[in-house]
């Protein structure tokens, strides 16, 4: 049904950049943004924020519960663990590790996927066939489980882990980029550019790339929670980040053994993971409807 498509009245610049209606951001989204901002601050400055060294043991103050509970100690607002280490300090460092890893992994994966998508769309033919086959293969195999096996056998290497996280999800960017570039080339402005005599570099750099950036950013926000969950799950199983390093998943996995005696060791990192992924999902949903209404599932 066509509800009279009147010509759009002129709009301010924020609208033109696709940021229309940012003034009417719902409270939930604002809170989510705040949570993410806090997480980012922690990621950047955890070392300066933690009250104790995250590895400093204090065997006389083991398993202190967090603040409002009986037997708590204001010096350890989130309590201490089995070795008397300060949970807050550990949480800050763990958050830093988890988010930094997920961010790096997501960005590497996004760049890799985008580049491969561009290559597939530009060269077509055999390049396209190979890249598309890789995309299909990636989507058709139980990647998490394979990653699990690889990690277990390759051992305690943060490089391997990062590599696996980057590979996770690249195919989504490749698929989106390929589709967008192809449609721009086949019937869109890229064809018009060609007719004007513009070279491919100009067309990609000035026209196509800026136009596919917002769907890619949306995909980034959609993928980021998945990547965090990927990291935390593997670390939870004891296969990703391992001591002496710590991450949210690793903390949670450790804390699981003390559920009966010290529930906070599991709940504190678990809740943190939940809050970060929830905030990211909310922000992602918001960006998806405002940056790119065409990209619905």
């Amino acid at each position, binding site marked *: 049904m066509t509800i009279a498509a009147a010509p759009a009245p002129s709009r301010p610049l924020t609208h033109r950049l696709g940021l229309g209606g940012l003034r009417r951001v719902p409270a939930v989204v604002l809170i989510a943004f705040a949570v993410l901002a806090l997480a980012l601050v922690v990621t950047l400055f955890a070392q300066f924020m933690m009250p104790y060294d995250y590895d400093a043991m204090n065997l006389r103050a083991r398993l202190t519960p967090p603040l409002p509970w009986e037997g708590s100690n204001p010096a350890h607002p989130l309590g201490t663990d089995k070795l008397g280490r300060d949970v807050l300090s550990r949480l800050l460092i763990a958050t830093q590790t988890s988010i930094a890893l997920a961010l790096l992994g997501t960005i590497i994966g996004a760049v890799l996927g985008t580049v491969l998508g561009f290559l597939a769309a530009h060269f077509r033919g055999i390049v396209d066939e190979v890249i598309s086959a890789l995309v299909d*293969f990636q989507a058709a*195999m139980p990647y*998490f*489980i394979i990653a*699990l096996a690889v990690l277990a056998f390759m051992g305690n290497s943060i490089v391997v882990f990062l590599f696996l996280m980057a590979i996770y999800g690249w195919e989504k960017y490749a698929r989106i980029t390929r589709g967008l570039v192809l449609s721009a080339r086949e019937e869109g402005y890229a064809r018009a550019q060609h007719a004007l005599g513009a070279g491919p570099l100009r067309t990609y750099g000035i026209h196509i790339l800026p136009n596919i950036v917002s769907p890619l950013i949306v995909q980034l926000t959609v993928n980021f929670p998945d990547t965090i969950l990927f990291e935390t799950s593997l670390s939870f199983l004891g296969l990703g980040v391992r001591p002496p390093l710590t991450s949210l998943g690793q903390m949670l996995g450790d804390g699981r053994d003390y559920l009966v005696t010290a529930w906070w060791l599991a709940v504190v990192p678990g809740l943190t993971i*939940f809050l970060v992924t*929830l905030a990211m999902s909310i922000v992602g949903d918001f960006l998806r409807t405002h940056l790119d209404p065409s990209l619905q599932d």
Partner: protein
Amino acid sequence: MSVRFVIVKLLRAILTIWLVVTFVFFVLRLSGDPVAQLLPDDVDKQTVQFYRELWGLDQPVGVQYLRYIEALLQGDLGISFRNNLDAFQLVMERVPKTALLGGTALLFALGFGIPLGIYAALHRDTAIDRAIMSVAVFGFSLPNFFLGIMLILIFSLQLRWLPSSGSGTWWHLLMPAVTLGTGFGAQIARYARSAMIDVTNRAYMRTAEAKGAGQTRKLYVHALPNAAIPIVTITGMKIGELLGWAVVTETVFAWPGIGRLLTSAVAMRDLAVVQCIMLILAVTMVSANFIVDLAYGWLDPRVRAQRQGER
């Protein structure tokens, strides 16, 4: 459905399985000597050599691979290093447990996700729609290991209603299935909602309305058969993810399925068992995709026609 279609699908399935198996094989071989891992530190060199020869690990990797594939084609999946049992049997003993857990979780996810998503779509932009979708966002943001732990804390440790680990009774199944199904169900609800909204905006729905079809008829006869197509697609695509989460869930609840077996096998470097599990998982995923393909043909006459070679 044409023979050609089946053959192409079959070839592609075999290719996928072969790629997974090969990839896993080489990764496992390139990551150090499993014998050293399995035997106590103080055994003498002769014992090590004995086991290396016994398991064929003294051969070059290429030879090992050819032998492995040869054995695989004869249905021999090797012997577990740990307890000298047939790896395939060891794995198959665990399969029913995982199938039970995965199947229940899937039913749970679809049974809640699809109706809720459709209900939300039909009441688009109302309070109930927003409520359902908010719950869905919570649902899939909730890491399932955390959900599992919370459930154990509340229902096992605090209330003492449900057992926290193991299997055996239906009570044992309840928490793991809910844990595994929640995130999946939340995603299904979102996809079902957008599929349904897409369908209700289509021109043929207006045609049905113009014919004078009632609400029920429009929903069940006209909208659902169309909305089912993307929902089936997404379900098939997400089966792999579900399997991954099953490993985590089994660990949380000490559920004796192949996920638990896998985590213990990788910890012990039990090559044959790990390879066997990977093979079974790959076959499962490929079969799931095949079933989705079949469902496609059944649901969508456009696909059916394409397969019969029409234009």
